[in-house]
């Protein structure tokens, strides 16, 4: 890239707000150049590229004055154009510049006089304000508001400098226009004069050359831009002498078309600027054709370099009342909406709220109009498109997607001449007399949705703005409902027709499904309770359709990805509402866990979210086994990287960007990750996930550990490796401190549970802070269930660990100890006996359990050990043999290979790993369930 581009960037950003802020940069750096001579400011680099222009050394103070001068020039220009919004900015920058001057001089200890030029500028503005207020011309909305603001600000400001103003007014020539050679700010040495003169001459010639081609030239834009940029630089850098200033002013006066707009995105927008801003359309004067023609004219300017986007919006807005028919109105509105989408400032990552709101208001009008005129007007769709020429499609794409394509007939005549020449716009009417409007309301709606989503992503969740943006969702959902109703009505009508067009019908249905899919994404993560509350607050029904109805629509007509996403959202919602079984059945029947690895990342994230929510649901309804199965993969600490469980969780759920140790992300990856972040209000509480995971793991692990100890197993299959890891670490501590984080609490609970102290365990688990994530009723219910589970597991652990010390235990004592009813104790222990976990039997008459533990003799235990060791050895030999012959086709081993081989960086990877593992792991109830379900859904 050449440096030109580089500097071009520079001016883009600095001139965005105002020229004074760019001077802010220039000031000190310019000074530095003088002193050091080595370090060059970025600004000056561009100068040095051109040999004609030399660097000019100037003091910081002078630069500030220059800034003031430059601004006052702008002021003059903007007054000429009555561009109030710009003028307002100028006014602000004037004050900023002044502040800086005053500050610098304060260092030297004395208060400098207020520069005359400033006072003059103020007076000029004041005059202009008052005169405008008197005349009351017709102003555009933005200008009017700016004027109002100025009306307040200016007098207030003037009061401060009353003395100066008065003295200047006394001279009789107080305005900028009256300013002449006696400007005292010019303290330049005259050595530079020649240089500057030269530079300026060349500038002027440039100006005129571009000027001549200003009408519609943008081919030369690049070249011109270089020149103009330079011009700007030299302007601010060298314009000091009054002679030149006068000249400049005169140039500006002579050629109004040249009036530079310093606030444009590019420094060289002069080129295509047209004086249409002040054009006011008078509805009564325009015919339908002329409105169309005007629209086309505006459209052609669209996307060109130098077209002021905001201006375009105002233009189209003012065209709206001129529309003569609903058809035209809809079209203009659609253009307006797309213009608003275009108007997103480049520096912003999303559409500003104001713009968004006004645009969605327009969209609502569009759909209302379309509905009122149904079926006289309809939007074009695939059926029409099929008829059309491919070239039109191309053109449509060139014009930016959702814009109206010129009509088919028109193209036939003019197709060869290209877009620019298209002047005729004929209303297209289909065989039935329906007027066809080119445009896709669904795409527009989706765009709104995307913009809002992006706004959520990029707004700080702790600010009131975020809340404000959240409120916008209601408007969006309103629009969605309207659009969908409209489409469905259209589809029903199409279906009811005798000669219904299959393609069109499908297209309509598919679009309705698209809207439905979007609506689902806005609904699925909200519990009913929340929905109801929102409805109460808004005083109306939030949606006319339930989630299920929408989902069914998508399943029937949507595309594959939408189907998968909606399915997951549906499952998520089931889980959120504690309908675990429904969620489980649906997930298993969807078969998504088999294909999720081939899906795109957002879908994988959604899958992870769904699995997590399922896990939490299982936890809430007191099913630790299922909860653990769902959450295990998510919570296991990441391989390789030391990010820990939380970091991995964040990545898998797209709830925050994390840095992994030992692995640098490329900028692209980082961007992609930022793009798929889930907005804050949709987050799942990470801390609670951890609580659920660890608590479930505890409930499963502790009795299992006791069991393996009682059996004297040498090796044991770990249910949760991460839990065991934490437990080992925790057990190493000689003096465990009071628990601080979730993990500590659960570990403390584990210690209690291992002793069979369910109450202590319960109290520790209850102490975890993340219970706050649940609503109070759910919390009490969940804790209640948890308590029961803890009692049972404590009983199991107790009887397994200490059975060797007892000959018999009575039911009543146990039930007293564990706070369980006799029947429950009986049932728990019976189960253990049947499953042969414990060697004991009941003595019915005394209601006690009699242990039958027979300690093997030394010889016997040695024999047992030997036997198991020999078996182990044979195992190992077989493995060796397998490795040698290369026949490693067994399920279990393959599984391992898969897990290691997978790309662990990929989000969602783990989830498949999990489903396979649960499929392969033996003995748990979930497994059979899954397999059964799989083949079951095969039937469907």
């Amino acid at each position, binding site marked *: 890239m050449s440096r030109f581009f580089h500097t071009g960037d520079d001016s883009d950003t600095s001139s965005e707000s105002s020229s004074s802020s760019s001077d802010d940069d220039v000031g000190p750096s310019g000074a530095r150049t003088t002193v050091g001579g080595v370090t060059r400011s970025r600004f000056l680099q561009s100068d040095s590229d051109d040999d004609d222009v030399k660097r000019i050394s100037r003091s910081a103070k002078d630069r500030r004055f220059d800034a003031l001068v430059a601004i006052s020039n702008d002021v003059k220009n903007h007054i000429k154009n009555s561009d109030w919004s710009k003028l307002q900015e100028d006014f602000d920058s004037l004050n900023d510049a002044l502040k800086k001057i005053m500050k610098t001089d304060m260092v030297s200890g004395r208060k400098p006089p207020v520069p005359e030029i400033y006072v003059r500028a103020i007076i000029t503005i004041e005059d202009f304000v008052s005169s405008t207020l008197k005349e009351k011309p017709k102003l555009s909305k933005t200008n009017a508001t700016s004027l109002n603001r100025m009306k307040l600000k200016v007098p207030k400001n003037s009061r401060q400098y009353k003395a100066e103003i008065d003295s200047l007014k006394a001279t009789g020539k107080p305005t900028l226009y009256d300013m002449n050679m006696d400007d005292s700010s010019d303290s330049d040495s005259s050595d530079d004069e020649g240089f500057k003169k030269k530079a300026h001459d060349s500038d002027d010639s440039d100006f005129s050359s571009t000027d001549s081609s200003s009408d519609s030239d943008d081919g030369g834009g690049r070249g011109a831009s270089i020149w103009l940029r330079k011009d700007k630089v030299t302007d601010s850098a060298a314009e000091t002498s009054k002679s030149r200033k006068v000249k400049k002013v005169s140039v500006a006066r002579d050629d109004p078309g040249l009036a530079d707009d310093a606030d444009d995105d590019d420094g060289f927008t002069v080129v295509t600027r047209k004086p249409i801003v002040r054009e006011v359309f008078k509805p009564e004067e325009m015919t339908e054709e002329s409105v169309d023609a005007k629209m086309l004219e505006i459209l052609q300017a669209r996307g060109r370099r130098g077209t002021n986007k905001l201006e375009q919006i105002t233009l189209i807005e003012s065209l709206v009342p001129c529309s003569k028919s609903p058809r035209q109105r809809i079209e203009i509105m659609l253009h307006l909406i797309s213009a608003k989408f275009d108007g997103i400032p480049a520096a912003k990552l999303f559409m500003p709220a104001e713009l968004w709101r006004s645009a969605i208001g327009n969209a609502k009008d569009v759909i209302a109009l379309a509905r009122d005129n149904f079926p006289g007007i309809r939007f074009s769709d695939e059926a029409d498109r099929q008829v059309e020429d491919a070239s039109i499609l191309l053109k449509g794409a060139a014009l930016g997607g959702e814009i109206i394509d010129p009509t088919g007939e028109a193209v036939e005549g003019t197709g060869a001449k290209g877009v620019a020449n298209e002047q005729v716009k004929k209303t297209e009417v289909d065989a039935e007399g329906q007027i066809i409007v080119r445009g896709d309301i669904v795409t527009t709606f989706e765009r709104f949705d995307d913009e809002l989503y992006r706004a959520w992503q990029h707004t700080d969740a702790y600010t009131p703005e975020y809340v404000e943006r959240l409120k916008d969702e209601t408007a969006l959902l309103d629009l969605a409902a309207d659009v969908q109703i409209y489409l469905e009505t259209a589809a029903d009508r199409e279906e009811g027709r005798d000669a219904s067009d299959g393609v069109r019908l499908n297209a309509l249905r598919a679009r309705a499904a698209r809207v439905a899919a979007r609506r689902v994404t806005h609904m699925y993560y909200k519990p009913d309770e929340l929905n109801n509350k929102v409805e109460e607050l808004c005083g109306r029904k939030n949606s006319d359709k339930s989630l299920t109805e929408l989902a069914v629509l998508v399943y029937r007509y949507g595309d594959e990805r939408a189907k998968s996403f909606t399915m997951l959202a549906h499952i998520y919602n089931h889980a959120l509402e504690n309908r675990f*079984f429904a969620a489980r059945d649906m997930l298993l029947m969807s078969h998504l866990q088999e294909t999720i690895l081939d899906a795109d990342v957002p879908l994988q994230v959604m899958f992870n979210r769904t699995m997590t929510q399922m896990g939490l649901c299982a936890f809430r309804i007191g099913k630790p086994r299922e909860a653990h199965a769902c959450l295990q993969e998510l919570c296991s600490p990441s391989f390789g990287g030391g990010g820990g469980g939380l970091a991995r969780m964040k990545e898998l759920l797209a709830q925050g960007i994390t840095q992994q140790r030992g692995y640098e992300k490329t900028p692209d990856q980082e961007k992609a990750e930022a793009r798929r972040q889930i907005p804050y209000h949709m987050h799942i509480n990470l801390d609670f996930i951890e609580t659920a995971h660890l608590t479930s793991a505890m409930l499963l692990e502790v009795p299992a550990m006791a069991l393996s100890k009682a059996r004297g197993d040498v090796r044991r299959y770990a249910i949760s490796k991460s839990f065991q890891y934490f437990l080992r670490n925790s057990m190493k501590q000689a003096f465990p401190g009071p628990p601080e984080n979730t993990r500590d609490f659960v570990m403390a609970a584990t210690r209690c549970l291992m002793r069979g102290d369910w109450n202590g365990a319960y109290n520790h688990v209850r102490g975890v802070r993340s219970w706050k994530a649940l609503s109070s009723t759910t919390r009490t219910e969940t804790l209640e269930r948890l308590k029961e589970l803890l009692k049972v597991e404590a009983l199991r652990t107790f009887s397994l660990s200490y059975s060797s010390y007892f000959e018999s235990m009575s039911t009543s004592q146990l039930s007293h100890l564990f706070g369980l009813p006799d*029947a429950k104790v*009986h*049932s728990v222990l*019976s*189960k253990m*006996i*049947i499953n042969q976990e414990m*060697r004991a*039997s*009941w*003595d*019915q*008459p005394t209601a006690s359990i*009699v242990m*039958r533990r*027979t300690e*093997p003799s030394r010889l*016997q*235990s040695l*024999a*047992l050990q030997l*036997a*198991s060791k*020999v*078996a182990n050895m*044979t195992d190992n*030999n*077989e493995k060796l*043999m397998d490795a*040698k*012959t*290369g*026949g490693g086709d*067994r399920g279990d081993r393959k599984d391992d290979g898969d897990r290691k081989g997978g790309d662990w960086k990929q989000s969602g990877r783990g989830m498949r790993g999990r489903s396979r593992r649960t499929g392969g792991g*033996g*003995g748990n*109830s979930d497994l*059979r*369930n899954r397999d*059964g*379900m799989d*083949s*079951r*859904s*095969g*039937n*469907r």
Partner: protein
Amino acid sequence: MEFDLTRKMSEFLDRHQVIPLLDFLIQHPDVEGSYNKEDVVKAKIDLLSNTGMVDYAMETHVELYGTPAPVELENRRDQVILVLHALEDDASPLLAIIQDDQLMQELSETNSFTMEHLTTQHDVPPEVLDAIYELGKFRFDCGSYEDTAALMWAYRTLANGNNPEREFFALWGKFAADICTEKWDAALEDMNMLKEAIDSSGRSVLLNPLQQLQQRTWLIHWSLFVFFNHPDGRNGITDFLLSDKYLNTIQTNCPHILRYLTTAVITNKRRRNVMKDLVKVIQQESYAYSDPITEFVQCLYVNFDFEGAQDMLQKCEDTLKRDYFLYKMLDDFLEDARRTIFETYCRIHQVIDIGMLASKLNMVQYDAEKWVVNLIRHARLDAKIDSQANQVIMGVTVPSVYEQVVDSTKNLLIRGSVLAQNCDRPQGYSGGYRGDDDRRNRRGRRDRTN
């Protein structure tokens, strides 16, 4: 009435098959009072007037209201007769042959009961075949099931794969007819053929998965008639319903069938092996369906709540005796359920008081003692009775350590020899034999460790 499945079941049954269910509700003394009799009769009339059995409908009508049947029914009757005659005319050439027993025998002996032969030798035009099908269908609708079965058989034999879809429906027709005529052997045969046709979708008839599911659902429901009436039915039903595909169908479409499955499993002598699977399914579906019978199983095998199981048994009795399919099995079920409770109970106890046992088994003490003695005598129980203390004392078996050692080393030899063989083999070569053998060993080992 709670836990009555008539409504649910009738969704999946043919109209003609619902009639016996309704008759059961009307007539059986145990069901007395659970439904308003008049309503049921009305329902029956509605049902009948949609079939071709207009005479029957008229009779029922007279029975219920005591007034002559309305004119519509009369008209309908005429229509039915008209259509029937028309169809019979259409099918007459073939019908004559089929009804001629002697000729039929001759034909089947010479293996020439084919369409080809009939067309050439007996001047039967090929279109008549379809007429036969239509006639069969209509006759079934009129209630002459026997004819239907014969006609459908004839159609299937003659069509011989030319119209697979129709033949498939003809098979259903024959199955329905056989059920209605209570020819259970024939019905069982039909059922198996249907099952095969459905499972091997694509070979003769093409069914998409959803259709397959529906067909299976129907098959399951219809098969209940067969299984609960056929002498070998109880074994058949457990095998049939517990096969993967049908279990899935039950879970997806009709969890209420679990009642019949559970009853069949409990009353089946070979239940031990399948009980575990059944318990899992019942647990899984407990949120979708539960009735006293499944709850009984849950109490007994999941919660080991013997009191609860006992209570449930009472409810089971109420439910079973009002079920058309199960009322005949009530006694068997109670007996077997009781024994199941007792067996499980014994497995976890060392001493049981006979008095308590008697009350749990709903028997007097003397009977209970006798019952236990019988169990002991048939070597189904390792126990003794302490008649002084009035207790049953269970025998205790402690698995011997030596046995464990023997178990875990038993297969080491064979595994070692396999290894030795493989060592000799050239590297990289692994024949199918080795793999199979090896895998079998592995599986064996894994089972044991479990």
